[in-house]
Structure formats: C-alpha cells, structure tokens
C-alpha cells in the first residue's frame, strides 16, 4: 500500500517552501494562538524603547504602589517605577538569555553528541558519565551553589542553563548518531572510502539536526522560566535592571496589598511560555510527528 503510494509520486523536495508550513501552523488553532503570542512578545521586546513611555529604571517616589491607570497601564511598584515599561524591557532580557543559552547549549550538545556517538567507545562512556553527573544535580541547587561563589549575575544564569541543557541535547544526538553509525547508508559511505568528517557532515548531521532543532525551540520557554525563576530568587539579574522574575519578587513581598505587581510580573511569563510551547508543539507535529513519542 504505502509502497505503492510512493512509487508514483512526482519528485518533490523534502522541505517545501516556508509558505505551506506557515499555513499548516496557522490552520491549527493552538499553532495560530502560539504564533500570535510569540509575535507580540518578540515585537514588544524589540521595540520596548518606542512603546514604553517611561524608562524602566526611572524612580518616582510620589507614585509608589499605584494601581493600573492610563498613566501606568500596569501600575507602579514599590519604588514608583512604571511596571508596563519594566515588563517590556524585561522581555528583552528574557528573550536574549533564552536565545543565547539555547543556541550555546545546542552547539555544545551537537558537538559532544557527535563525538560521543561516533568517537571511540571509551570516550563515549566517559562523556555519558559526565552527562549523567551533570544531570544528577537539581538545576536550581546547582545554580544556588554557583551563585554563592560568584554572586548574582546574568552570566551565572547563562552558564547554569547551558551546563544543564547540553547533556540533554548531546544524549539525543549521540543516540541518533549511534543508530546511524551502523545504518546502511553510512556503511555504504564508509565502503566508498568517505572520511569521518564527510560522514558526520553529509550522512549523519543532516539526519539528526531536524529533530534537535525542534526540541530546542521547545526548550526556549523552559529557559525563560529558569531565568525568571533565578531572578525571582535574586540570583540572576541585578536589581535596577528589569526582569520578569525580579518584578515578581518585588510583587511577592507586597502580595497582600499590591496584587497588580505579581500580575504584571507573572502574566508575561505565562504568555511567553505558553506562546513558545504551543508554537513549538505545532512545529513538531508539522515537521516530525514521530518526535512526539520521544517526549
């Protein structure tokens, strides 16, 4: 049956143009919803300076704890800073960290995964042991330990996120590489005399990179959550800088009388993580439905 269906198919490129993929994402209600949220978040982060009417760190002691109003769309915090503008600027930091950390962990994960999967057995075992060891630290505990030494900083957050994410990607790449290493098309390339670099670049990497990119896109909300969480604990962004986690912390301290601060800090986190997750899920279903099982 399926064989037959393939036989008479006209030649078609595996990755069609962006257009049809976009249409398929939008056709799914969740995908469309996710896409809209992501566009809003990215847009407001990019143009934070233009949209916001106040600088995010400007103090105005006269307006402390002001509820939402036309002057201050989301109200003000305990120092009288405009929460709307802090939220917009906080989005910049959240996205920058998310993209940067995900990109770095991807690069590291792919490299180590290929080495572990295609390299000698002892190196594979050693790397696996390292991955397992890193994975055995609870993320936040590791972050707490690191920050105790370095003091709170964005760099520390970045380092923790990359450190805990690399093993996950590397393991997936390694498993796939191991499977492909003995696959017939790779054996065929070896039998033709292809070198290691060629085999990795032409015959293995293109076949493992798709799924990992989709998985990474689904990790963006996780990184947003880690950054916000660490900033909430006061371990990430340093005080004057706006961060959603820091806003949440400001609000948490005053939760009994100024509820709008936690709302201002938390809602963007929820919208961002939901948006990226819904979009990522839809992307995965469109590109590679088999991946669903690996979750």
């Amino acid at each position, binding site marked *: 049956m399926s064989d037959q269906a393939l036989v008479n198919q006209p030649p078609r490129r595996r990755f069609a143009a962006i257009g049809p993929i976009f249409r398929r994402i939008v056709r799914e209600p*969740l995908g469309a919803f996710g896409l809209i949220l992501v566009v809003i978040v990215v847009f407001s982060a990019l143009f934070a300076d233009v949209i916001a009417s106040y600088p995010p760190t400007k103090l105005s002691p006269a307006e402390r704890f002001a509820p939402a109003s036309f002057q201050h769309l989301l109200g003000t915090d305990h120092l009288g800073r405009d929460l709307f503008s802090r939220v917009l600027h906080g989005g910049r930091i959240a996205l920058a960290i998310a993209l940067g950390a995900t990109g770095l962990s991807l690069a590291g994960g792919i490299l180590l995964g290929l080495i572990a999967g295609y390299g000698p057995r002892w190196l594979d075992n050693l790397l696996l042991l390292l991955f397992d060891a890193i994975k*055995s*630290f609870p993320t*936040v*505990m590791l972050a707490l330990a690191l920050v105790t030494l370095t003091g709170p900083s964005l760099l520390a957050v970045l380092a923790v996120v990359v450190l805990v994410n690399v093993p996950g990607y590397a393991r997936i790449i390694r498993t796939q590489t191991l499977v492909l290493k003995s696959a017939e098309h790779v054996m065929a390339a070896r039998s033709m005399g292809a070198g290691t670099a060629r085999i990795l670049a032409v015959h293995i990497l293109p076949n493992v990179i798709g799924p990992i990119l989709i998985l990474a896109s689904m990790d963006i909300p996780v990184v947003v959550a880690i950054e916000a*969480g660490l900033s909430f604990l006061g371990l990430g962004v340093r005080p004057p800088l706006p961060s959603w986690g820091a806003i949440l912390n400001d609000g948490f301290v005053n939760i009994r009388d100024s509820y709008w601060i936690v709302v201002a800090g938390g809602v963007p986190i929820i919208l961002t993580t939901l948006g990226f997750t819904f979009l990522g*899920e839809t992307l995965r279903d469109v590109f590679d439905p088999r991946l669903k099982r690996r979750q």
Partner: protein
Amino acid sequence: MLQYALKRLGLSVVIVSVAMAMLFAMIYVIPGDPASVALGPRATPEMVQALRSRMGLDQPIWVQFARFYFSALRGDLGIEILSGRPVLGVVFEQLPFTLALIAGAISWSVLLGIPLGCVAAIRRGGFVDRVIGVLSVAVIAVPSFVIAIYSLLIFAVALQWLPAIGAGEPGNLGSQLKHLILPSLAIGVGWVGYIARMVRASMLETLEASHIRTARAFGLPESRITYSYALRIAILPTITLLGVGVGTMVSSAVFAEIVFARPGIGKLVYEAISVRNYPVVTGAVLVTTVFFVVVNAFADIIIAALDPRVRSSFS
C-alpha cells in the same frame, strides 16, 4: 535480576563520585575562594588565611579532594559556619519536609496523570482528548513558581481557603496535610501534564504494536486489550519519567518552600546563601544529588523487575 540491580547501583556510586568531583572542581576553579566568601568583604587577610588552613584550603588540590570525598563517604559534610553543627544533621533536619512535598507532587501527578492519559488515548482525536492535550501542554509550559505565587494569591490571600505559610503544626497531621496541598499542587500540576501526555503517547504506540493486532484478531475484549495487554507496557516509561522528574521537582521545591515559607532544603540553602554559609550549600547540593541518583537507580530497577525481557536477560 540481582546482578542488574547491583550493577545499576554500582553505576550510581560512580555517577555520584563524578558529580562530587565536578562540584569540587567548580568550587576550586571559580575565583573567590570559599574562605573569603564565607567571611565576607570585611575580613582581613589574616582571618582569611586562618580559615583557609582550618578548611584545609592550603593543601594541594588532590589532597583537598580526597579529604572532601572520603569525609563525605563517612557522612561528614563539614561544619556549619554559624552554629558549628555538622552540616549533615542540619540538612537531614530539613529533608523530611522536602520529601513530603515531593511525595505530594508525585501523588498528584500519578493519581491525575495516568487516568487522564488513558482517557485521552482511548478517546483519541475526540473533544476530551483535545482538551486534555491543551491543558497538559499549558500546565507543562507555565513555570511552577508562577503557579505557586498565583495559587498563593488566589487560594490563600484572596479566597483564604487554605493556609498561606508554614508546614503546619508539628504532630498535627491534618494541619500538615492542609499546608501541603497548595505547594505540592504547584510542583505537581506540571507533572500531571507530563504524565498524561506520556501515558497517552505510549498507550497509542503500544496499541499500534502488532501483538495488539494479534490480540484483536483473537477477538479479545477491547477492555482487556487496553488494560491488561497495553497499559502494562505503556506504564513502564512513566516510571522512568517520574525518576527523572524528581530532579526537577527538587528544583521546584526550592521555589515552593520560599513562596509558602515552608521549612525544607530549598529554604535552608536559600537562607544559607545570604549569610554565605557555604558548607550548608554544598552539603545540601550533595544530599539532593545522591537522593536523585538513588531514585533514578530504583526507577530503572523497578522497570527491570516489571519487564520480563530485561528481567531474564540478566538472570
């Protein structure tokens, strides 16, 4: 089977050792040594030097590591800087609170997640499946500390249905359980989603297997196929997932303990940081790491015991 269990536990010992080496390397590599961190910026060089030699920091690195490693094996994680009590005792005092929290979270996720996943798999493609699907994704996406803060705001501050802070009166089980509801739900709700999705996916995969087709071809009732032929296989990945999940739950517990002002390891470490009580931080990290590694080993061993394929390959 026994051989597998021993092998798996042996591996755990190796993993913990490597993790300890990494922790040690981190302390060693990062500028700013523990002694000056502990004493704070106002310490004089003489004070730092004194503490350094008391902590053994003037020894060669491998001597330091060997000392660190072997004293940890004996259960000696050092002395708490402020009170002078052994770190292990301080950590173990807080551990039960965190364990209760995690146990609560696991209960939520298993009791809600497995049935929801089954229902979604059986009604696949239907309205119920879609609703469960969207809700699962949503609760997975939203970070647990945001859920913690908002549930505190809604149920404890605004509605005042449940207590906001603390772990309940000692000795009063009812009060303790009441105090456990919100924080454990905040940690566990995401895992309800994870488990539901995992059970659904692995149910669907198992239902497609050719032995299920055989069972259908023999006219077995659909209920028997679902619950005794498919679920038995589909449930196995859940155990692995929960094993791995315990690590994330420990992280979430840090937030839950701070938000709900509950005693526990997370709160202990968080407070230790502000006074630079470094031995407590390392001790707590080690204890939670060991806990996580052991839980994972047991998850694997349980799976091996439940799956005859694995069971007999090691007998």
